[in-house]
């Protein structure tokens, strides 16, 4: 029987961060990771992360995963087992693991469950036809295994996963016919929706999949509009030909081990299902068992990393590691979590956590200022299709006087999401957020010199630089670009509007790499002045 101080179950963002923070305080940690490659969902997240610098915002998930892994490998207090699936937690505190083909028993003093989540499934006729995948599975095939998973895809669900995977499918050269969403609003970040709309992928809200059809494999789907009661509206049915249907209809926390261990579990809709009840230190109702990351409520990976760090700190402190300094680290982590959840997109999570706090018998006195805080409601159709309207643009449009002075950054970022790399990127201090990281950025025209550093650093690809002074009738629009092939300087490329419509062929003036790690290019297109506020995408295909 192997003994260990802290067993971390799952080597994803939460698990790795838990191991790192606990080991840094001196605790001996064993990480059991099911996959051969640690990193959890990070290993396939080729997009840049939101959040703040503390959660590595602006960096791509794959790079964050690599960095966490390298740090864990370099830490002598961490033992990392890969291809090692934890099978059970028994009543005598023994945890069994299938490790190197063997049934291994481990007796830990503390357990941190960081098992993450699994994709939800949807019931519709034909839902077992080959060609129907979870969106995450398709993302793995594509970004981990290098397999082009489909030719034509219908994406079901416009949460962040549905939107991001659609974008990545497009990057991989797969046609995405549409993203459909039952709700009347886009659930994911609007900047992701805007990005795929620019790529010509329609996002259809209040739509559902009625059935999948095909002879032995998916050949298409029938979709329809739905009414307020989520019932299909007769006469709106239409067929969408596709060879693959991706389901991005939410995640369920992977709580089996918590149930087995006897942790109290409750259904909390806002946290996406059954979750173990945890206290402020993320300790479950079974003393010594902590839960971090998606297993105790579905959130972004940035929150999972901080939760992992917090659970690791608390577990180590409970083993008498860390001393007085540890409390500061714990407080910092809690504060970071509060910050990440303070925005409009965090309302659900906060409600869910409040329910959990009630159940755990530690009613949380929610920050009254946060509770009463009203968020800038997006009133335009932007919320339902991700396409900024003329009114949305008018609200952020620089004055003609400012345009006359030279290039200026325009941040088409209208939603209060936790993200601030643009603020950090701007050396001139021109981009600010009046409140916390959940505010929308404000560009100060007096300070912005149009350098464009922010373009490739914005995780949402929502910033462009427009120079109306290029020539008498032409302007330069500098745009972020993440496709292959790259436009070639001196040739013509297609300029696209916010809905992906071609606006014409324009000269490529300059192609700037964001760097080896950043990997976002900035393309300068020469466009007629009248189109400078319309051209928002580039295509060379």
């Amino acid at each position, binding site marked *: 029987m192997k003994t260990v101080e802290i067993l971390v179950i799952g080597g994803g963002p939460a698990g790795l961060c838990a191991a790192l923070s606990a080991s840094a305080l001196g605790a001996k940690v064993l990480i059991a990771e*099911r996959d051969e490659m640690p990193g959890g969902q990070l290993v396939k997240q080729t997009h840049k992360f939101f959040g703040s610098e503390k959660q590595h915002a602006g960096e791509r998930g794959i790079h964050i995963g690599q960095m966490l892994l390298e740090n864990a490998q370099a830490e002598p207090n961490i033992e990392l087992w890969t291809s090692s*699936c*934890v*099978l*059970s937690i*028994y009543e005598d505190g023994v945890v*069994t693991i*299938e490790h190197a*083909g*063997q*049934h*291994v*028993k481990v007796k830990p003093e503390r357990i941190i469950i960081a098992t993450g989540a*699994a994709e*939800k*499934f949807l*019931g*519709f*006729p*034909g*839902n*077992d036809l080959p060609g129907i995948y979870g969106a995450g599975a398709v993302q793995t095939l594509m970004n981990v295994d290098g397999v082009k998973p489909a030719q034509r895809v219908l994406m079901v669900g416009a949460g962040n996963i549905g939107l991001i995977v659609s974008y990545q499918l497009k990057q991989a050269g797969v046609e995405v016919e549409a993203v459909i969403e039952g709700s009347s609003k886009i659930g994911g970040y609007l900047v992701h929706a805007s990005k795929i709309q620019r790529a010509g992928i329609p996002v259809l809200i209040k739509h559902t999949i009625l*059935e999948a059809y095909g002879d032995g494999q998916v050949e298409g789907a029938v979709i329809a509009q739905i009414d307020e009661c989520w019932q299909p509206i007769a006469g709106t049915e239409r067929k969408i030909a596709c060879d693959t249907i991706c389901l991005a209809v939410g995640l*369920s926390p*992977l*709580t*089996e*081990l918590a*149930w*087995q261990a006897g942790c109290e*579990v*409750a*259904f909390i*809709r806002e946290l996406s*299902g*059954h979750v173990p009840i945890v206290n402020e230190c993320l300790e479950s109702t079974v003393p010594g068992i902590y839960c971090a990351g998606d297993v105790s409520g579905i959130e972004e990976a940035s929150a999972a990393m901080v939760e992992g760090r917090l659970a690791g700190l608390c577990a180590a402190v409970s083993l008498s590691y860390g001393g007085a300094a540890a409390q500061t680290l714990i407080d910092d982590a809690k504060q970071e979590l509060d910050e990440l959840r303070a925005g409009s997109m965090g309302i659900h999570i906060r409600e869910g956590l409040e329910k959990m706090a009630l159940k755990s018998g530690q009613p949380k006195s929610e920050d009254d200022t946060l509770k009463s805080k009203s968020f800038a409601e997006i009133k335009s159709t932007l919320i339902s299709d991700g396409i900024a309207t003329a009114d949305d643009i008018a609200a952020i449009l620089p004055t003609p006087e400012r345009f006359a002075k030279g290039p200026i950054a325009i941040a088409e970022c209208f939603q209060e999401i936790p993200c601030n790399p643009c603020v950090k990127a701007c050396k001139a201090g021109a981009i600010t957020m009046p409140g916390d990281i959940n505010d929308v950025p404000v560009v100060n025209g007096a300070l912005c010199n149009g350098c464009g550093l922010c373009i490739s650093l914005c995780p949402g690809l929502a910033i462009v630089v427009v120079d109306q002074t290029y020539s008498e009738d032409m302007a330069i629009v500098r745009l972020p670009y993440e496709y292959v092939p790259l436009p070639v300087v001196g040739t013509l490329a297609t300029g696209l509007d916010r809905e992906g419509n071609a606006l014409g062929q324009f000269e490529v003036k300059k192609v700037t790499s964001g760097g080896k790690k950043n990997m976002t290019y900035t393309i300068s297109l020469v466009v007629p002045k009248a189109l400078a506020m319309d051209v928002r995408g580039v295509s060379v295909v």
Partner: protein
Amino acid sequence: MTSKDNEIMICRCEDVTKADILQCIADGYHTLDEIKRVTRAGMGPCQGRTCRQLIAAELAKHYGVSMEDVLMTTFRPPVKPISLGALADAYETRKDWSLE
């Protein structure tokens, strides 16, 4: 029940359709535990990781209760299948009683 309910797969491991589930509910079974035992839904290798929620939703809908009030089935070990050979080998190394 609609004519297409038998084309809606709920439990992929054990081939249980929505029609099977609705039949169970019509027959008076009103818990996940009963439906699991009558149809085998959730008894396959994944142990109901995906179908459990779908069945719970059907029960909630039929009985007009919220998901919170649908009793969950237990999660039995192991969470992932493991071979008898690996288990037997582990016993060999700690053998504390013999065949005789």
